[in-house]
């Protein structure tokens, strides 16, 4: 018994496949979705989506979005999403520093530019966090008991 999982970001399909369980960072907390789950429509927080199939687990960072759960399919419409394996740590770090600098240099608060920078900072922090927690020493740990 599997459930279909499709993760799309605005510019591409990040993941599509049949899996055993999907864990989503929902607005009201983490939620694990198994096959035959009741229909849910939820917004997503900045966080990590875990997808497990057999013994293999894949992780995706998601920078907000919406998820629709039907009994046989989970559709994640992410504002931005990325497989943790794809994240370039050095680049993410550079992006974080740029965003931090720009923010401390004083973009007027409450402007679109400020909000955009803040979002960029949150996003790069999330990516770095994801990389460091789940990719120590190159191998992937099973993060079941964490979070």
């Amino acid at each position, binding site marked *: 018994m599997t459930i*279909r999982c499709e993760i799309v970001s605005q510019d*591409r399909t990040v993941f599509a496949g049949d899996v055993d369980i999907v864990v989503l960072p929902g607005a009201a907390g983490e*939620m694990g979705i198994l096959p035959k789950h009741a229909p849910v*429509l939820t*917004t997503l927080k900045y966080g990590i989506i875990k997808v497990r199939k057999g013994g293999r687990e894949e992780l995706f960072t998601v920078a907000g979005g919406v998820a629709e759960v039907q009994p046989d399919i989970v559709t994640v419409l992410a504002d931005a999403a990325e497989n943790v394996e794809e994240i370039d740590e050095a680049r993410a770090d550079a992006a974080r520093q740029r965003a931090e600098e720009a923010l401390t240099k004083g973009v007027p608060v409450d402007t679109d530019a400020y909000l955009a920078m803040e979002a960029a900072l949150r996003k790069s922090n999330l990516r770095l966090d994801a990389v460091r927690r789940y990719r120590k020493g190159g191998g992937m740990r099973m993060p079941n008991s964490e979070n």
Partner: protein
Amino acid sequence: MASAREMRLRIKSVKNISQVTRALETVSASKVRKAINAVMATRSYATKAWQVLKHVAEQPGRDSLHPLLAKRNSVNNTLVVVITGDRGLAGAYNSNVIRFTAQRFDPNPVPVKYIAVGRKGRDLLIRRRKNVIADFSNLPAAPTFMDVSAIGRLAVDEFLKGSVDELYLVYTDFINMGRQLTTVKKLLPLELGGEGRVEEFEHKSTDGPAAAYEYEPDQREILDEIIPRFTALQIYQAILESQASEHAARMIAMRNATDNAKELVGALQLAYNKVRQQAITNDILDIVGGAEALAAK
């Protein structure tokens, strides 16, 4: 028959035109490639978003779920977003959109307001004395969602204000380089079933969608967020589709123009050669005639 000089000038001008059309074809060819990439990249997201919207619309008691879902008892005004290009020289691309719009909405029983996206469409609509309430021209070549979200916001606001009771979108769906399809899509209030591209990876829900959603955080908040945004997203996707279609249409039109010019040059050249040959023959006859007249003396 025209004089040789006139024909030479004509050949030259046709050749010049064919150079221009060939250049335009090349430019469009590279633009269409970029536009296709953009449209393909966002298509899966837009399709999924549309599916989610449809599932929401299939919810029991949808009319009371959210004002954007409620069907109105009496429809007094219709709003149509019409997407065309800013430039001409794209074959029948722009006029197709306007002709289609006229066919579809001229018989409309209630007054129709238009939002024009693209300069050509705006001009053509105004010339037909349509009620154009807003104009979004000169969009950037590869617009981001931010660039066009204002269009969606305006349309949704008009709907919520009650000044219109239906929202339609007319755009050109990009199917492939040779085929673009002018399409109308009803955006608000959301309608069940109906058209919509069937993607090869589309997932058919087996259990039927009747069960009611649970909402997190709460229904109002989430619907408030996604319905306007996904509606705007449909407009964004339509703009990308239209742009790809426009470039493809222009490329084909320019290729045809170049081919026609080549053909025309060929025909003109033939005629010109005949005229020239005729002139030479006449000259020779004159000379021979003159020489004979002299010899006979």
